[in-house]
């Protein structure tokens, strides 16, 4: 039972962290619970589908289907997160101000909710398919231990949910003024980390071979398979043996995000401020 608990918890931990951040980011958007629950549900269904077709997905692209599939869905999440940040740079003031309830903000807010619901769905899908395969394998072949494994799995899932809530409430303790900046930085780092992870999958598939040297090994300091290492891996993309390509992608995503936020966000904010003053 304990083994099942640990395996399931390890898989849902990342999804829990991401879920908590997304909940905090969308705290003031009406109807967000439905969207995020929808994202989780879609993620679970997709995870089951991926688990059923795991063998077929693996055989694609000369045996590298799984790596490329992971890289692709991580890519989707990176685009959604970056888009959210850029969108918030433009509309954040409307949402945060008294206009929060205004019709326009609600309609526009839905677009951003969709992007974040997709991010949650992708997080659940990635980790969920492994949980489904594991639990299915045990339940199908070892009926005698099935019950205790299912119980362990359930406890693992609940612990993952607890991580989600802890992240959420911890973020909500940050004063409202600082929260926007904090979540913007968190989401940018999350996106950069996911992009670096996608690069790692492409490297493993031999689709990306440039700059494949390992730049440093900080495993002695913080292994990325320890709990703290895994948390940092999800939050800021920490890995103890990054390749030059992973670092390049990481930095590039951060630069692109902040450049886009400046380009898209700044003029509108100035215009709005001017309108308010006038």
């Amino acid at each position, binding site marked *: 039972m304990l083994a099942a608990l640990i395996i399931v918890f390890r898989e849902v931990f990342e999804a829990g962290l991401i879920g908590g951040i997304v909940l905090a980011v969308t705290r003031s958007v009406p109807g967000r619970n439905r969207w995020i629950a929808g994202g989780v549900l879609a993620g679970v269904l997709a995870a089951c589908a991926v688990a059923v077709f795991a063998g077929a997905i693996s055989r694609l692209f000369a045996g*590298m289907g799984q790596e490329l599939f992971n890289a692709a869905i991580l890519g989707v999440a990176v685009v959604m997160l970056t888009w959210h940040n850029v969108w918030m740079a433009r509309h954040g003031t409307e949402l945060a101000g008294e206009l929060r309830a205004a019709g326009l903000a609600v309609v526009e807010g839905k677009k951003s909710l969709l992007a974040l619901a997709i991010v949650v769905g992708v997080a659940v899908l990635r980790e969920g398919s492994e949980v489904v395969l594991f639990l299915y394998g045990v339940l199908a*072949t070892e009926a005698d231990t099935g019950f205790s494994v299912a119980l362990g799995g359930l406890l693992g899932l609940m612990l993952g949910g607890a991580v989600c809530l802890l992240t959420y409430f911890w973020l909500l303790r940050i004063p409202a003024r600082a929260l926007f900046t904090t979540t913007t930085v968190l989401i940018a780092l999350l996106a950069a980390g996911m992009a670096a992870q996608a690069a790692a999958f492409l490297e493993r598939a031999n689709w990306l071979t440039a700059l494949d040297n390992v730049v440093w090994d900080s495993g002695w300091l913080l292994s990325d398979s320890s709990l703290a290492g895994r948390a940092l891996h999800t939050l*800021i993309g920490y890995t103890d043996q990054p390749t030059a390509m992973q670092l390049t992608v990481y930095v590039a995503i951060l630069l692109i995000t902040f450049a886009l936020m400046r380009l898209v966000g700044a003029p509108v904010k100035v215009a709005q401020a001017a309108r308010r003053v006038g």
Partner: protein
Amino acid sequence: MAAARTLSKTVLLALGLVAAGAQAQQASEIQLSYKDKKFDPAEISAPANTLIVIKLKNLDAKAMEFESRTLKIEKVVAGGSDAVINVRAQKPGRYEFFDEYNEKVARGALVVK
């Protein structure tokens, strides 16, 4: 926290500029099978500083997940199917791997010489 993040970003940036390392050319291929929660052979070896390709056959009916923390590999292998696992060039050493779904019993190691 904000300061720590800024610091970690700066460190990442700085270290990103210090890029150096060995390049690998030819890949060495290793056959490995998995049955009844056991890897066969339990120990495989490969030369240092070359790419390694592990061809893994999962002969069990259940899915397994080939994982190695030191080699940075996690790969799900469906029941009764084959998988190709690319391993980047490694320094000499012993690298353990296992089936994540049966971590205690299903273990093996790659020895790089």
